[in-house]
């Protein structure tokens, strides 16, 4: 078996004290910059509203990826001689290690890089991921964090991107559609009910006026289903907006004599 030790020794440069200091400085600077960006940008974004808030939040993972690439581009030439032979040897060794020991971890890291480019979710988006619906508050290298309506923080590995559907309610936009449904007994004036529900939406203080308001009516076997589709001024208001529409919509339907549909209860004989 041939002795490869001279070749492997040449893979890594001999590091002197100055190289170590340079490496440490690059790593520390990258960490400080990434941490600072991850704290400062959300802090600034939370003082903004609408579109500016959304764009500042979405820039966090992209900026971190750029900083990591710059740091790696500075570190690698210090550690190894950047020849084709050395790169192949390094990537081969890394591939073996990843393939056996760190498959899921690295898969999540790679999915994190993909997510930074494809942007199936960005900070500020409202997504349903792995059965959880909430606002994306952090897109890390390995995981994405959501805060749900119950104020729970859910951490999901990016790995889910490969196999699961991602439902993004606003997809990078600062507005998001809300659907509020009403189930009404079939004996009523549907034309009037539809107009009344449209007014309910148009008079909500939460309403974002630059997006359309639509009332969808569907006849079901058990009655009539009305759905108001409208947009609040801020996606974070979606649950309060739906509550407001529900409360006022019920009142309005009751005023015109449209009864809510009660569940069928079978009485004992």
């Amino acid at each position, binding site marked *: 078996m041939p002795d490869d030790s001279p070749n492997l020794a040449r893979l890594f440069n001999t590091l002197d004290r100055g190289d170590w200091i340079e490496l440490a400085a690059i790593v520390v600077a990258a960490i400080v910059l990434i941490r600072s960006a991850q704290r400062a940008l959300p802090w600034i974004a939370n003082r903004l509203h609408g579109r500016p808030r959304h764009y500042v939040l979405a820039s966090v993972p992209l900026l971190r990826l750029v900083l990591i690439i710059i740091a790696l581009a500075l570190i690698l030439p210090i550690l190894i001689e950047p020849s084709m032979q050395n790169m192949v040897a390094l990537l081969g060794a890394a591939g073996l290690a990843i393939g056996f020991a760190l498959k899921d971890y690295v898969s999540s890291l790679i999915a994190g890089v993909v997510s930074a480019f494809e942007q199936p979710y960005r900070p500020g988006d409202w997504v349903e991921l792995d059965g959880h619906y909430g606002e994306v508050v952090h897109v890390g290298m390995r995981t994405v964090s959501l805060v749900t309506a119950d104020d729970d923080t859910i951490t999901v590995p990016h790995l889910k991107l490969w196999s699961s559907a991602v439902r993004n309610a606003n997809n990078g936009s600062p507005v998001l559609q809300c659907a509020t449904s009403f189930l009404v007994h079939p004996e009523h004036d549907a034309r009037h009910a539809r107009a009344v529900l449209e007014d309910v939406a148009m*008079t909500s*203080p939460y309403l*974002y*006026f630059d997006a359309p308001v639509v009332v969808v009516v569907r006849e079901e076997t058990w009655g009539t289903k009305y759905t108001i589709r409208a947009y609040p001024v*801020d996606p974070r208001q979606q649950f*309060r907006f739906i509550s407001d529409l529900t409360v*006022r919509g019920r009142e309005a339907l009751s005023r015109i004599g449209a009864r809510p549909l009660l569940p069928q209860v079978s009485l004992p004989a």
Partner: protein
Amino acid sequence: MNTSPTHDTPSPPPPLWQVVPATDYALPTDSQPATLQRRWRALGRLLLGDDKDEADPARAEADLRALPQLRLANLAPPIDWAPAARALGAPDRDAHAPVRLFIGQPYCEHAAILAHWARAHDAVVLTPPDSAQILTADRRWLDGLAPDKGRPWVLPELERCFLRHASGLELLRGFLARALSGALGPGLIGCDSWALAFIERIWPLPGTPRLTLQAFDGPALTRYLMQADRGHVRFLSARNGKPLLPEPPADGQTDASAAEDGACPELRQLAAHCRGNPGLAWHYWRQRLRAAPEHERQAQAEDAPHDPPARQDRERLAAADEVVWVAPGIETPTLPAESGEDVAFLLHALLLHRGLDAEALGALVPIPGARVHSHLLRLQALELLTRDGTRWQVAPLAYPTVREFLRSRSYLTDDF
């Protein structure tokens, strides 16, 4: 406004009060450094949550005294809106558009302008329904709007004909359907600019002529202040001691070209800050007037008795040339950095209806009544709201701040 320098005789100045189509409204522009300075301060407030004034007041300003109300009323009398009503012209009997809309920005008193107009043209003034009639969709109000043959009609305040409530729009729709169809004959509808922005989403108004007062830019504001009867008073900037208004011509006539050339940066900035709204500019101007420092007046009084003839001269001179200082900068109340959704709802509802009482306000916002009162009192303490009887309104000096607050949060705003 264009006057050609090549003509031997200058063209007559444009009238100060112009009524123009709303699409021709020309926002006055601010100078670039002033805009940057204002944005820089706004950024500081946004990021640091600093609600205090950024700079210490100048020494000269600290010495200046506020003027008594009576003196203020003499120096800055309320705007006479009669010339604006005259600028509206005669009733329009164009069969294709029997109704015209006159849009007024907040504090531009469109109701007062239309009241003047109605008197001048013997028009029937329609009174709006009360809140209970609006919420119960009382058709008797609509049925009472009978046309008067040969006389035009005026509805000065369309914003009083609706409430932003699911039951508060029917009378508005009924009225617009009748009026715009020509069933009531030729008429003029006055409407607040914020209310109109909302009404257009409820009832689009294509083809209805929309008129408004043209914006007051720096020269127009200068002309207005020169025209106002103020006796022999010189308004000096407390920042640099320079006069803010050019000297009127000796013949007593206001010279439009003097105003055009002599509009100082402070007045141009004020016009831009108020977005050309003369009513708002008047409130700012009035708020900035100050009396001379006390020690100067005392020194004059002490010097005077030693030399009676000189004293008489000085008194005559003082009477002929009283100095009123105009405080530098534009002081605006600021919203607390933590102002949230409740505050936005209240301010927005007040602007859309041009003021509301607390009870009506409680019916329009999803906030419990007790909290509505608490917020109103807090905003009043911050000088963001004023109360006229039972009606709450956004304070004039707070209006630009409130408008920007709502605009930045994507709430519906007016077109001005």
